[in-house]
């Protein structure tokens, strides 16, 4: 209902915004409608209409005018409108981005269908470019936001013993900015798509069709989501920790979320600024990137990668946290080299800001920049190595409980090793000059982001599913999902390294016949990989609706979120939990429990 009101107000806003613009344009003797300019003006007004409609007015803004904010409803209804409870927002993010993940995955299936044979089959070149671009930005959005959005929101406040995030209203605002991003990208496809991938390099993005404008508006909005979320996590983790929750006792997932949020907060502005400059070039006629008018296309690449390389650590640092969390609890051992891991996470935050130009070794940038960026990029392998030390040290001699989340966490170690080692070839200039913009790169970043973060995502998803839904997932379906996904994943992306080295470049609708055998194999493997998500989706839906009721602590884990009921009570804790020891004191003789819960109410919920 609230969503319907939001949509109506968005349309009203859009018509009003474009109408005023059209009025001005007509009075100046111009045409009423200009796709680029009308969307640029109509969209922000539509966005405000949407936010008011979905509950931003009723639950928040009304107070600015002396009114009284409404009380949110209980039950399922609250998931479909503005809500400030971090647990509701976590689920909203989780479901939204899983849907976007499956949708972008479906476009990957279409892409693999097209690339199965040399020549054009399913798509025209134009449609292929749009599908590829949509797959790219859809998955980047999922990767950036799902770990922090879903699990950061749901789990971080619970793990640190807080009642909610520091800024619940900002939290609701940042979630409700997400649906417009998805809607705009889909409208962009419907009005003819865009063909600049997710990177939007000018001058092409300045010259190409108007779908680009919608892409830019959507992604700038998404940047806002990321920045607002980042600020919220930083503030929450600094100020909302329970008594006794010192920095040295924080669960490692919280550290991962903290490190990822720092990057999201510091760097996202760069991307948004770059996209805004493209909009200005298109709509107002500036020439930041118009070579003909003295602008510089390479400038954009610097601005873009200054954000977009750190962005991969926004994706991966919370994933490191989640994987180490699962490994420690399911090996029943203290997290190995905890303090070193914290240092490594913060070290990655620091170095991530000074490696961007390794994406630009073939861009024609100044030669003297090559050596420093080669050195700095190789340096990032040092803190990343510590993460591996911790993962291996934690499982070594442990009591490994091979449930679905553990399988995904262990697979993460395998995949990220491949992803990390192949990254060295791309940091090294003499090999990168050949490999840049080939399928080798495609395989490499799928190993780090999909094999890394997305496997970590499924580890986290299965691990926290009982806590978040109050239901236990089906273990058999979970394991089927894991094995098909793991095997399918290797079969898709290992040959991609090979075909890339052989000379197949990325982002192409078609390729020389010489690469056909590889591509056919990759496509069939891709369909296998796709099938695994049918088991996943079935498991999620069936288990959520009819699954066995979950107990408070099915994994016997020590951290705070497992010491309350599944799902947790409305304000998380009855009384104030007090932290009195480390988060991973498994097997430590006479160690105090991680937390002393506030009142007897705890046992009541178990």
């Amino acid at each position, binding site marked *: 209902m609230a969503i319907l009101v939001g949509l109506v107000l968005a349309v009203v806003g859009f018509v009003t915004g474009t109408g005023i613009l059209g009025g001005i344009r007509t009075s100046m003797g111009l045409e009423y409608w200009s796709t680029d300019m009308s969307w640029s003006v109509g969209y922000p007004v539509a966005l405000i209409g949407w936010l008011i409609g979905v509950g931003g007015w009723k639950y928040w803004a009304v107070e600015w005018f002396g009114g009284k904010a409404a009380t949110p409803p209980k039950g399922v209804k609250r998931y479909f409108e503005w809500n400030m409870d971090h647990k509701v927002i976590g689920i909203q993010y989780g479901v939204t981005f899983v849907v976007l993940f499956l949708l972008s995955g479906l476009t990957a299936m279409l892409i693999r269908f097209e690339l199965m044979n040399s020549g054009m089959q399913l798509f025209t*070149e134009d449609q292929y470019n749009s599908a590829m671009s949509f797959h790219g930005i859809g998955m980047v959005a999922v990767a950036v936001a799902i770990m922090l959005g879903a699990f950061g929101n749901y789990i971080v406040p619970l793990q640190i013993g807080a009642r909610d995030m520091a800024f619940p209203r900002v939290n609701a605002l940042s979630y409700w900015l997400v649906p417009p991003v998805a809607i705009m990208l889909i409208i962009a496809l419907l009005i003819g798509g865009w*063909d*600049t991938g997710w*990177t939007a*390099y000018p*001058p*092409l993005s300045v010259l190409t069709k108007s779908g680009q404008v919608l892409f830019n508006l959507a992604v700038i909005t998404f940047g806002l989501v990321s920045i607002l979320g980042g600020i919220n996590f930083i503030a929450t983790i600094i100020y909302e920790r329970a008594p006794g929750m010192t920095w040295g006792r924080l669960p490692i997932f919280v550290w991962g979320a903290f490190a990822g949020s720092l990057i999201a907060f510091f760097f996202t502005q760069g991307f948004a600024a770059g996209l805004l400059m493209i909009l200005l070039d298109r709509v107002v006629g500036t020439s930041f990137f118009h*070579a*003909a008018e003295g602008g510089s296309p390479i400038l954009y690449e610097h601005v873009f990668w200054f954000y977009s390389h750190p962005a991969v650590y926004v994706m991966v640092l919370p994933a490191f946290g989640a994987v180490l969390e699962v490994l420690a609890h399911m090996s*029943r*051992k*203290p997290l*190995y*080299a*905890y303090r*070193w891991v914290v240092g490594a996470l913060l070290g990655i935050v620091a170095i991530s800001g000074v490696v961007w130009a390794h994406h630009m070794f*073939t*861009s*024609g940038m100044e030669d003297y920049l*090559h*050596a420093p960026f*080669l050195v700095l990029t*190789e340096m990032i392998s040092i803190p990343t*190595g*510590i993460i591996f*030390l911790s993962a*291996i*040290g934690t499982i070594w*001699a442990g*009591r*490994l*409980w*091979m449930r679905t989340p553990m399988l995904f966490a*262990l697979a993460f*170690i*395998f995949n990220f*090793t491949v992803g990390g080692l192949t990254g*060295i*070839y791309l940091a*090294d*200039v*003499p*090999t990168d*000059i*050949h490999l*840049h*913009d080939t399928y080798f790169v495609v395989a490499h970043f799928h190993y780090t982001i999909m094999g890394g973060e997305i496997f970590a995502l499924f580890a986290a998803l299965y691990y926290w599913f009982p806590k978040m839904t109050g239901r236990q997932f089906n273990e058999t379906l979970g394991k089927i999902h894991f094995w098909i996904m793991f095997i399918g994943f290797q079969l898709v992306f290992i040959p991609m390294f090979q075909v890339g*080295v*052989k*000379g197949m470049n990325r*982002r*192409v*609708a*078609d390729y*020389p*016949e*010489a690469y056909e055998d590889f591509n056919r194999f990759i496509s069939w493997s891709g369909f296998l990989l796709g099938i695994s998500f049918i088991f996943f989706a079935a498991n999620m839906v069936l288990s959520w609706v009819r699954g066995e009721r979950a107990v408070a602590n099915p994994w*016997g884990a020590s951290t705070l979120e497992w010491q309350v009921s599944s799902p947790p009570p409305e304000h998380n804790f009855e009384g104030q939990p007090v932290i009195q020891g480390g988060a991973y004191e*498994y*097997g430590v003789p006479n160690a105090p429990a991680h937390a002393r819960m506030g009142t007897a109410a705890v046992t009541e919920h178990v």
Partner: protein
Amino acid sequence: MNRHLWIAGILWVVFTALALAGAALMNPFPTVGAEEAEFSDHAFRMMTYMGAPVFGFVMAALLYSVLRFRSGGGGEDGPPIRGVGAVPRVWLLTTTTLAVVVMIYPGLTGLAELRSDRTHDLEVNVTGFRWAWVVQYPEGFASQELVLPVDQRVKFNVTAPAGDVLHSFWVPAFRLKIDAVPGQITNLYITPNELGDGATDAAYRVQCAELCGLYHARMQMPVRVVTAEEYEAWVAEKAGK
């Protein structure tokens, strides 16, 4: 505990040996058509050899743990090993050393080598525009096929018209690429050292390697590396027209 370490250590050696053998036997590369290609493939192989023990280590530790340290989830705790003291320090020292080694060789040394020779025997201008390539030869004619004499060092001046978009000049057989930036000239130096023909070998093609819109995939130009005599004949024919 010691026995676990011994077996896992042996596994490490075995995996590393297998990875090294695989790396030595594999030939993932397209046709080697230039000195620069030999150089790039050599760097690629070196990194594969250096990566093999790292890959072997992680696989040994992972596989051994998965096989030997299972439990049914009965809630029994593992030994409280915390990872303080010598192990993380040794690890840090080892990984740092490895990273520094790779930075220097094949990294920085390779970069220096790549930039060392700026002489050339032949200079051609390449222009990329949506969606085709054109080569301008010093004799004053233009061609939509890149024909080069073998064993001569060629300097490429690459560009795109000021009103066009980014492209990237790449010949897989030569292993080098450089973006064609509107309104700017970028350079590549290549010494083809094998005869080759784009009609039979996909590695001999100029392929645009920077997303440039509608027909990006089709933005190709065949490459032919010919003997000095054949080259002269071709030039004479082209220039005569």
